[in-house]
């Protein structure tokens, strides 16, 4: 059954800029739902550099990526935004007019449909997706001989499995799939692993016992008759090559960002960025706004603080779409009792 959610605004992307937009919209009594493909909020800050210090957030001499996300979550708590994680927006359908926009937003899960008056795209560099290694014809084997994630372990029973990578995903799946594989081989570029030490230790024990193989090198070619994979060619650091027979390859090379379905939403694009004006940060489609790293305009700087500013200005125009009859009074949180009530801090 399809879930229909009616709300004021759908925010695509729950990174720092999308999160702060909840605050600016909330002060204007505008309700939001946020959608993000990651299983957690915070976008790049949480996924790429949670521990890295950031020094250019106003008012914070130093804050880590995760620290900033945690603070933003505390700041927007009074507005009770709803999060839809692990979901990707697939399509946007315009139902309204340029003066009174209305949209239907569908996600990849296809069980959720949103009806909203405005959309804020705060998607940063796009959606996080598994990094695909640049190997010729790899697409031809995807879903049959090449998998970037394990959904059902049983699929891999009695298969000859090649896992590529040296991080937690690669090592965790090595240890977990080894018992049901016909033969498991782990391939990594060097004899050092950044995965958790106890998992690395387990893998080394299995190798020492002859229960799996470990090779050092890189996959340079896939062998087989697509979509049926038969093996791979591996190149070692000294330039020599050898083949390993296998039924499936699982490359675990981490995540990267791709524009994805945004390209299909009828928006003007310039080099994978969405052009906006600098008054409202609205796209060529009235009612759809783009804020943060995903937008472009003359003088654009990809800074978190720029995204905060853009969200505040976009919120002003969103207010006109959501409350066409209401005049917007500009107020400060320091002095306005009505804003303080919304924040739950009124005396």
């Amino acid at each position, binding site marked *: 059954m399809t879930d229909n959610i009616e709300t004021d605004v759908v925010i695509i992307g729950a990174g720092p800029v999308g999160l702060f937009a909840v605050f600016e919209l909330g002060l204007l009594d505008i309700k939001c739902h946020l959608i993000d493909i990651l299983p957690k909020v915070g976008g790049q800050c949480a996924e*790429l550099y949670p521990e890295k210090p950031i020094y250019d957030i106003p008012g914070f001499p130093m804050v880590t990526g995760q620290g900033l996300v945690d603070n933003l979550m505390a700041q927007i708590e009074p507005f009770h935004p709803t999060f839809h994680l692990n979901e990707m927006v697939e399509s946007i359908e315009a139902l309204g007019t340029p003066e009174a926009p209305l949209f239907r937003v569908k996600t990849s899960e296809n069980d959720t449909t949103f009806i909203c008056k405005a959309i804020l795209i705060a998607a940063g560099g796009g959606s996080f997706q598994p990094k*695909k290694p*640049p*190997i010729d014809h790899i697409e031809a084997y995807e879903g049959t001989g090449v998998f970037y994630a394990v959904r059902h372990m049983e699929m891999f029973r009695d298969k000859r499995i090649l896992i590529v*990578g040296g*991080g937690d995903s690669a090592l965790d799946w090595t240890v977990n799939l080894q018992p049901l594989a016909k033969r498991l081989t782990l391939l990594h*570029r060097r004899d050092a692993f950044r995965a958790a030490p106890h998992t690395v230790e387990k893998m080394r024990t299995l190798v020492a016992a002859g229960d799996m193989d470990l090779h050092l090198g890189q996959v340079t070619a896939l062998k087989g008759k697509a979509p049926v994979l038969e093996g791979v060619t591996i190149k070692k*650091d000294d330039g020599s090559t050898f083949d390993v027979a296998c039924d499936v390859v699982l490359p675990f090379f*981490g995540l*990267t960002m791709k524009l994805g379905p945004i390209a299909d939403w009828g928006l003007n694009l310039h080099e994978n960025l969405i052009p906006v004006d600098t008054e409202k940060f609205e796209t060529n489609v009235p009612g759809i706004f783009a804020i943060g790293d995903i937008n472009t305009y003359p003088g654009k700087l990809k800074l978190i603080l720029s995204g905060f500013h853009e969200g505040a200005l976009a919120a002003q125009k969103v207010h006109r779409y959501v409350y066409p009859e209401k005049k917007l009074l500009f107020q400060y949180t320091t002095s306005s009792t009505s804003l303080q009530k919304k924040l739950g801090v009124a005396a």
Partner: protein
Amino acid sequence: MGVIHVTDRSGQRHTLEALEGWRVMEIIRDWGLPIEGLCGGACECATCHVFVAEEWIPKLYPPTEEEEDQLDTVVTQPNSRLSCQILWTPDLDGLEVTLAPTGS
């Protein structure tokens, strides 16, 4: 002042003016060649992966453990480096790099 030579993914070689204190990734990006640099130079994404010409390898600071960890997430060659981790100095005048292929 000096230059770096960058071979793009179609095999064309570009000579780019370099500035001291800039990262090689920043020089390549500033000249408009297709290098992603998603994380902005924080050594967190490996989208600025390049192959460094053999003769230049010994002139570079060796990769840190952090850079090695990121190189684990791409298909490397022995001369693989992340260009955001190479700070350009006049010693690197004439540095020769090739942009690594990216997956689809």
